[in-house]
């Protein structure tokens, strides 16, 4: 006979009284390392055990880069229109409304103006959570205005790309955002204002074929997928398996399209050093 005895049968705690274990307290990297989210945050969202760079958004990048997380957001309320009345399995406005509710973001990019170790900087950062970080009119217009701000105040511009490419639901309009952003970058180039393009995981399609590759300095986080065509499309086109490490940051650096790869934990200081070198 057991040394304890259950007095009441079954579990009597009602659903309302049950205590939740908070979700997302622990993060598991693709290599299987487990880390507490608080520790992850203190480590610029890089797992110390395997150096895996967790995919983060504008909120986190701004927190990492702007002094005391202080910045002024530009065009914070800009949202997508639906110029083509686009419908696939859902209508485009429905998709937008649902995504806004789910992500608490207005679209796939945000611009902040603030200081990085005391130096003025304009940063536009993409959010992959918003329809795959796809570039539509809002993303294009926000980047264009961020560049206008950089031009007007002669402040260096940092673009953090993280995107699957153009937004299909805006078809021709999204294609022309590649042109628009490149037009503004032509002006920035002529004005001699520094433009740093940071490519993060993933940066592909129309984003790679426009502003992401146009930096005076093209830099990337380690292990990011960077390419024009997606790996699946290439595999299907050529009917062959792709070599290991194909389209990784390291591959792109090796082929001469990046200036350097930077660990996110050193990002802020490296940017500061670079901007200082340009200044003096």
């Amino acid at each position: 006979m057991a040394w304890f005895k259950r007095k009441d049968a079954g579990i009597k705690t009602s659903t309302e009284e049950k205590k939740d274990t908070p979700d997302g307290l622990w993060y598991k990297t693709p290599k299987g390392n487990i880390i507490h989210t608080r520790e992850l945050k203190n480590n610029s969202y890089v797992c110390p055990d395997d150096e895996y760079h967790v995919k983060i958004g504008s909120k986190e990048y701004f927190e990492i880069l702007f002094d005391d997380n202080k910045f002024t957001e530009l065009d914070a309320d800009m949202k997508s229109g639906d110029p083509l009345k686009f419908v696939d399995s859902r209508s485009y406005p429905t998709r937008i409304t649902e995504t806004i509710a789910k992500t608490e973001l207005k679209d796939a990019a945000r611009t902040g103006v603030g200081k990085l170790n005391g130096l003025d900087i304009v940063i536009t950062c993409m959010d992959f959570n918003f329809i795959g970080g796809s570039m539509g009119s809002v993303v294009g217009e926000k980047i264009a205005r961020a560049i206008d701000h950089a031009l007007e105040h002669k402040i260096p511009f940092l673009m953090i790309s993280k995107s699957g490419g153009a937004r299909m639901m805006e078809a021709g309009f999204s294609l022309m955002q590649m042109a628009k952003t490149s037009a503004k970058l032509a002006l920035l180039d002529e004005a001699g204002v520094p433009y740093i393009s940071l490519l993060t995981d993933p940066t592909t399609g129309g984003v790679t074929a426009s502003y992401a590759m146009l930096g005076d300095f093209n830099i990337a986080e380690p292990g990011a997928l960077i390419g024009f065509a997606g790996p699946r499309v290439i595999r299907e086109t050529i009917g062959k398996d792709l070599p290991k490490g194909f389209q990784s940051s390291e591959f792109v650096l090796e082929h001469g399209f990046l200036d350097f790869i930077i660990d996110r934990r050193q990002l802020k200081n490296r940017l500061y050093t670079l901007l200082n070198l340009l200044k003096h």
Partner: protein
Amino acid sequence: MVLEFEKPIADLELKLSEMKDLAKGKNIDLSTDIKSLEEKIQTLKKETFQNLTRWQRVQLSRHADRPYALDYIYEMTNDFIELHGDRSVKDDKAMIGGLGNIDGRSVMFIGQQKGRNTKQRQERNFGMANPEGYRKALRLMKMAEKFNKPIVTLIDTPGAFPGIEAEERGQGEAIAKNLREMFKLKVPVICIIIGEGASGGALGIAIGDRVFMLENTWYSVISPESCSSILWRSWDYKEQAAEALKLTAPDMLQNKLIDGIIAEPLGGAHRNMKVMAATIKSTIKESLAELDKIESNERMNNRIDKFCAMGVVVE
């Protein structure tokens, strides 16, 4: 090759030619019948081609008999000299270019080139350029600027080539640089979509003071087939995708994403290449006459402002 919706017309045309042969061979007067049949064909053609669906226009843009860039260039110019190579890696045969003279004026022509038969198609890589193609195009544009010659680009591509070497040599960077540098060109730039205008691969030579589409072409961020496969998760919704993408010349003009439409001969450009080339040529000449009047810095600023105005946002 005859497209499905061209069939009723082709059938009647066959009947007409038989009737003409019969009249000639047996020396009988069928002129009334011939005339009425000709009228019938004309009416049917008009009906068919005035009510094309978006997908039908996509099909016409890819018609096997459709004229390609070099066909138009040789038809429009005297003394055309093709120029090759990007001075770095190789000569990309999917992207052609050179100097030619249209009615007394030298123009730098650049365009994607498709092949007519299997061998040519392979050689031209189906009009899908590699990075060296875009770099060759930029080299020729800079040359045109140096010698103060206007640039005309003829766009016809199913996309920039997605391959291993293309990625190794920076397909994205090559296109991106063209976009930025085309905004800085001090000479007039006229861009004409003559067939397919697929995404970045098309845009990479399509930043112009004037951008035109031939009547039966398409220009968008993705092909209807790929759009169908991504959004509908099947290749079978290409017609719907074409409708949703609003990728035809009238759509693009309505959305102010292009500057004008160049009318095609009834039945499509392939029905009368000479007439089509003549129309393109007169459009080029008219546009150049307008653009010549604008000072080069202003022309460049107008080009930048035009593209910067594209997009619809809510604030």
